[in-house]
């Protein structure tokens, strides 16, 4: 490892170079009352050996999804990743390329991005996909910025409470200083009631945003919502689950204007906080408002097929402070993984994966709700994730099940205090019948041994 030293002599030489004698002199322009005037409250320096041991110790406190039976979801899922994804995306030609600023010299990267865009457009049923974004939350926020740009005005954004709460937080952060209000529409039944939207939508609205399947795992009335939005000249935005589109209708088929997604399901391993993959697709008429860059296919002067960066003038390196988006670094490697994943599965494989998720999730729901005191929280169709009400203290219950090797689900009350007695369970194609039965058996025995959810000490 290379260290950049900053010894007393180095500091002296640097200060001499700029013609001053002390660090105090360097900081003179900062008013005294704004200075900290004490040392930073951080531990003393460690040797390399000590530091390695320290971080190993911290890292060992984590338990990875692979070390337990994982029923965790909420936007990040334990899907199977075929080995071809690592094999291709790990090739140095792809792995070391950062971003095609020397665009036309990076034909391989451009072709991969073009394939990604094509796959995303086909998957979502939309006309256009950009060349990827940070993750699902920023994709949703950027879709709202697009809607504001299309409407050429500020106003109000309506968003269903059933959208991922962290996406909502991201959106609020993006809009904090843009004079555009965010109004959250309640979803007491586990979905946005189109009748409520009809009542709440008005001429001040710019966009309506939903997620389907939503944070509770349930399907929204996407078609009705898109139609209400269209009738009111409001942009409709849907955040979707890419795997679900193996069997569900596509956002484009529902009449949605902008469709976004978290692309982690498509070949990106679970990681604490990412990096993940943002997907953003839209109708052709909004292509000039799409953030980030696109890759187009064309022919060179010899008639050979080739790829070029198009519509890149919206970005900071050309448009400077007037750029329509803060996106300049996409998640190229994860976009590549998604393209390889979908190419490897093909339409048939994606459908099979989605069907396995659907069937296993429904089997799990039937097994769990067969336990006394456990019931579905919402009576709504769901895909691979669902929310159940459980007796006792959910946090203690999850901790107990974790001790027995099961990540049984998300504590829904962490984001929705009124659902503090709920658990959101995700079931991917990787979960076996034995694992699902194991969870149900363990939950049953834990609850019957102690209805408070706490395991009895032997």
């Amino acid at each position, binding site marked *: 490892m290379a260290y950049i030293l900053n010894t007393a002599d180095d500091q002296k030489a640097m200060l001499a170079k700029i013609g001053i004698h002390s660090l105090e002199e360097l900081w003179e322009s900062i008013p005294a009352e704004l200075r900290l005037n004490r040392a930073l409250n951080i531990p003393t320096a460690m040797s390399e050996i000590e530091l390695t041991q320290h971080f190993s110790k911290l890292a060992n406190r984590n338990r990875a999804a692979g070390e337990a039976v994982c029923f965790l979801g909420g936007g990040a899922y334990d899907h199977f990743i075929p080995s071809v994804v690592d094999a291709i995306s790990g090739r140095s030609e792809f792995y070391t390329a950062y971003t095609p600023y020397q665009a036309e010299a990076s034909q391989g990267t451009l072709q991969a991005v073009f394939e990604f865009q094509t796959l995303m457009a086909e998957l979502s049923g939309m006309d256009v996909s950009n060349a990827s974004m940070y993750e699902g939350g920023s994709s949703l926020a950027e879709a709202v910025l697009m809607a504001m740009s299309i409407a050429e005005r500020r106003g109000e954004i309506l968003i269903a409470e059933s959208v991922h709460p962290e996406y909502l937080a991201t959106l609020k952060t993006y809009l904090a200083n843009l004079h555009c209000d965010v109004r959250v529409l309640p979803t007491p039944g586990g979905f946005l009631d189109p009748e409520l939207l009809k009542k709440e939508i008005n001429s001040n609205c710019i966009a309506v945003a939903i997620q389907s399947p939503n944070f509770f795992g349930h399907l929204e009335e996407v078609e009705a919502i898109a139609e209400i939005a269209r009738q009111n000249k409001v942009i409709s935005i849907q955040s979707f689950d890419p795997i679900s589109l193996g069997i569900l209708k596509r956002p484009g088929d529902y009449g949605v204007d902008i469709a976004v997604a978290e692309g982690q399901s498509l070949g990106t391993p679970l990681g604490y906080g990412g990096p993940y993959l943002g997907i953003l697709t839209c109708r052709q008429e909004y292509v*000039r408002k799409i953030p980030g860059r696109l890759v187009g296919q064309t022919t060179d002067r010899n008639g050979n097929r080739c790829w070029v960066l198009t519509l890149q*003038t*919206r970005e900071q390196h*050309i*448009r400077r402070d*007037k750029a329509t988006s803060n996106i300049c670094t996409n998640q190229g490697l994860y976009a590549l993984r998604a393209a390889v994943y979908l190419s490897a599965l093909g339409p048939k494989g994606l459908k099979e994966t989605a069907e396995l998720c659907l069937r296993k999730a429904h089997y799990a729901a039937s097994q769990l709700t067969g336990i006394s005191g456990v019931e579905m929280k919402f009576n709504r169709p769901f895909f691979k994730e669902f929310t159940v009400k459980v007796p006792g203290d959910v946090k203690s219950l999850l901790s107990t099940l974790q001790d027995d090797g099961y990540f049984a689900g998300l504590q829904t009350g962490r984001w929705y205090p009124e659902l503090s007695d709920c658990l959101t369970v995700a079931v991917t194609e990787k979960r076996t019948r034995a694992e699902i039965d194991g969870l149900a058996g363990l939950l049953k025995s834990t609850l019957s041994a102690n209805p408070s959810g706490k395991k009895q000490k032997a």
Partner: protein
Amino acid sequence: MDLNTLHYAKSHEWAHVEGDICTVGITQHAVDLLTDIIHLELPKVGAAVKAETRFGEVESVKSVNELIAPLSGTVIEVNDKAAKDTSLVNSDPYGAGWLIKIKLAPDAAKSHLMDLKKYEDYCAHEGH
């Protein structure tokens, strides 16, 4: 269009004034600098424009530039054909590629604009 009858701005827009109506476009020099123009963002009819301030945007393959109004007034016509087919601006910036027509404000003053001779001198020296 007789180029001698036009007024020119330092930001490379031309203005053709007839009575209180002014037609605005960008000069051949601007087109040559921008290369392929691929998108225009023009104001709507009824919009007020102010001399020496932005009224739209011109985007070429490699750059984006603001369109600056040569004179103040109200937009009465927008060249939708050019907005839809930007090759008109590339091929005929003084004719079919005009951008907007303005009904001039009563106090619109042309003193900051150049005639053809001055504009050509300006372009010749701009890059030096």
